[in-house]
């Protein structure tokens, strides 16, 4: 039985230009709550090790809705419960509630500290809101805080990025997720036909980020994730280490008994018929590949022995040629793990293409 769950809260107060996740601006929150409550109860989950409320914008949920939803989960000791928050919908009162209910990790969507850039990507919050919320979170004993930043934004310079990182470092937070802008087909940017920034600039930015954060004492433990010692996102590690997790709510994906599923992305369908998961039929072969595709994202290493037991073949034999090509410059083999080097992280897609049969 899975010890982790992801809950998708699809509501947003406005739509950001880069986002292609399942998100709706809707007034039917009551009916949605009834539906997801039923869905969660039917799962008959045990006590969880990690729980993640993502979205959409979980912090846009009304307090009593949030409370009702939370009452359906129980935890093991040493659990991690993350809620994704938007600085302008997260209020002090909500922070107090979260703390009371036992939320112990917050992921705050900051994206950039340059306010005119924020406007240009459809974000409505201010820097003051960010600093105030972080202060209030700490006052309410939620100190395990991560923020999200985006780089390679249209018109963002190297100087802008450096300032963003400097600001992040003054906040002295345990975790940072920093993504290069991906222009998704179904996002507003994608529909506007936005041109990506210069590839060399993007590579320069990434290399700068990795170096700067390493110097400041952060561990670069996944392509886009950095943390202070031991402050990994334990929930996200579940995804990268081929573990099962429940996917709850419309727009959520899950994996149970090593079978992936996607819940419906249509609010209407969700309210009428529930999660309606579509199970993704994959061969063992494909599953083995997906495990590599996810596992090599993390420098904590991909557990070769676990993979071999599960997929009944030898890793080193099956990928002899690929390993010969990429070890040790791009990949390293060490104590039954395989992990990417800095260069390997930058070129992971090229490597993964070679892993494909």
């Amino acid at each position, binding site marked *: 039985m899975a010890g982790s769950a*992801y809950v998708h809260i699809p509501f947003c107060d406005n739509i950001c230009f880069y986002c292609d996740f399942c998100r709706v601006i809707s007034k039917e929150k009551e009916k949605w709550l009834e539906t997801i409550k039923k869905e969660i109860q039917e799962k008959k989950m045990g006590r969880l090790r990690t729980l993640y409320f993502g979205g959409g914008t979980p912090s846009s949920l009304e307090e009593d809705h949030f409370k009702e939803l939370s009452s359906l989960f129980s935890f093991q000791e040493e659990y991690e419960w993350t809620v994704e928050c938007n600085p302008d919908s997260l209020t002090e009162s909500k922070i107090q509630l979260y703390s009371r209910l036992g939320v112990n990790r917050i992921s705050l969507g900051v994206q950039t500290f340059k306010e005119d850039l924020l406007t240009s990507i459809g974000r409505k919050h201010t820097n003051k809101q960010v600093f105030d919320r972080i202060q209030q979170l700490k006052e309410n004993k939620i100190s395990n805080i991560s923020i999200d930043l985006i780089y390679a934004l249209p018109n963002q310079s190297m100087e802008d990025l450096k300032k963003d990182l400097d600001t992040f470092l003054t906040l002295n937070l345990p975790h940072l997720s920093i*993504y*290069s*802008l*991906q222009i998704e087909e179904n996002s507003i940017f994608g529909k506007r036909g936005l041109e990506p920034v210069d*590839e*060399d600039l*993007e*590579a320069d930015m*990434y290399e700068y980020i990795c170096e700067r954060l390493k110097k400041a004492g952060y561990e670069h433990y996944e*392509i*886009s994730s950095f943390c202070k010692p031991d402050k990994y996102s334990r929930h*996200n590690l*579940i*995804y990268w280490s081929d573990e099962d*997790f429940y*996917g709850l709510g419309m*727009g*959520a*994906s*899950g*994996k149970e008994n090593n079978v*992936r599923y*996607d819940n419906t992305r249509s609010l209407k369908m969700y309210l009428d018929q529930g999660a309606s998961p579509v199970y*993704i039929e994959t061969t063992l072969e*494909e599953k083995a*590949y*997906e495990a590599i*595709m*996810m596992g090599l*994202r993390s420098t904590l290493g991909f557990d070769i022995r676990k993979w071999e037991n599960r997929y009944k073949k030898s890793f080193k034999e099956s990928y002899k040629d690929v390993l010969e090509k990429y070890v040790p410059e791009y990949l390293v083999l060490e104590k039954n793990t395989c992990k990417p080097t800095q260069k390997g*992280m*930058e*070129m*992971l*897609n*090229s490597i*993964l*293409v070679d892993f*494909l049969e």
Partner: protein
Amino acid sequence: MDQSKIRNFSIIAHIDHGKSTLADRILELTETVEKREMKEQLLDTMDLERERGITIKLNAVELLYHAKDGEDYIFHLIDTPGHVDFTYEVSRSLAACDGAILVVDAAQGVQAQTLANVYLALENDLEILPVLNKIDLPSAQPDVVKQEIEDLIGLDCSEAVEISAKSGLNVEQVLEEIVKKLPAPTGDPKKELQALVFDSIYDSYRGIIAFVSVKHGSIKPKDKIRFMATGAEYEVIEVGIRNPKEVIKEELQTGDVGWISAAIKSIDDVRVGDTITHVDRPAPEPLTGYRELNPMVYCGLYPVDNARYDDLKEALQKLKLNDAALQFEPETSQALGFGFRCGFLGLLHMDVVEERLEREYNLNLIATSPSVIYHVYKTDGTMEKIDNPALLPPIQKIDHIEEPYVSAEIMVPKEYVGAMMDLCQKKRGEYVDLQVLDDVRMNMKYELPLSEIIYDFFDKMKSCTKGYASFDYNLSGYRPSKLVKMDILLNGQIVDALSTIVFKDFAYNRGNAMTIKLKELIPKQQFEIPVQAAIGGKVIARTNIKALRKNVLAKCYGGDISRKKKLLEKQKEGKKRMKMVGSVEIPQEAFMAVLSMDED
């Protein structure tokens, strides 16, 4: 059947102007095919053909028409090849006829392709029957279009029939006009046999089947026949017609259009345009207009996956059965491995063959830049024919090189003469003559190096004359030229498949254009790749393909994994279509870069 009751004709039309729809209506009206079962019946024949490995073409159909004058007539509707650029084949199909129906879209008017084919029909002395189609469209302007036909072609359109092939409106009137206005075949049944070969197909049971138009005399099974140009002799096994199903006949008479089977093994014996006569009573001379079709353009064809060499060989052998002009022999390239040097009539022929190999035989191919045949005179006094630039002897062993020239005739509306002359000049053309044909058209004559035509000449011609030019050429001989071999180096290594032979004065421009184009076509790789053009070891142009430094998905969590995997699978597919040369992955298109580069 009385010869005066036969009408042999083609339909000339621009694509989409309604040629096949009109043909369908004619088939229905003549009750050759029942309306309801028409599709099915035709498809049945085609499936059968497909099983036997025959190319699907409706070469010539015999139709019975009961005219309003109370008499029965036999129509032979002869198809022309779809590609107008096969001018010679089109002209032979037209030579099999006595008349042609010119179909023009009443909304769109005369198009360049139509014009070119009308000229061919006029050269073959065909009577032309103008017909305006799509008359029921709101945008139809029959009077404007009629005037246009009169101005451009000089055909009297006062009695042109206005039809809608789609609805069938006035199509019967076209049939009546065919009876009244198109001439019957004028051949003499008592004279020695002269049958024009205008097409052929391969049938795995019966060998090559020749399609013929009997101009004089008659032909029947057991006749001993001779192909006058190739000299091949055979005994006729069966003769017949198609209606469109195959029907065996006792005899083909003067004016008949049908097929002959004679257990012919080699396509090389049956050349389009050749004349068939009897061995024991031969015609004194063949019909005019035969031309031997020799390959003029060569390129290397290689399977992307070396393991499929034998499949490629088999596919080429099969195509060859239906295509006399195709030639091929094995060759090897350092960069590409084992493949074939193939000869084609021209660039379009090359495209068609390549496309068929890829589509019908499911082969993934790399085609190298096309080349003509150069005569290379060496310092030791010998001459070598070179059709592969990579095989050009070293400079110090070459005395001089000669290249093929063509005499080109270009018919073009007056207003484009200036633009066309500029183009010919740029392509090293030598002006020969300029004639006024009529109020609107002029005929330009130029001597041009063939190698300049096989690149982008046709595209450039189309764009500078809006498509209203027709072009015909004949090999006129070899002339000495200042030619050099230009090599391309990727990552410091010569890629033999990218070598070309160029006119010396063009080398710098072409080297530049080529390196820029390659930079565009070759995707970034994990290291920087210098791209150089060099002549005899001296670099004349250079650029760099920057290294790919970052290729990774920023976000990948629990959802959307299938989509992200698809992204990688797509990259993998792209990689499969690339050839690893040394340490560089080169996409197929790059080997044809020379065709798509912009030198201006």
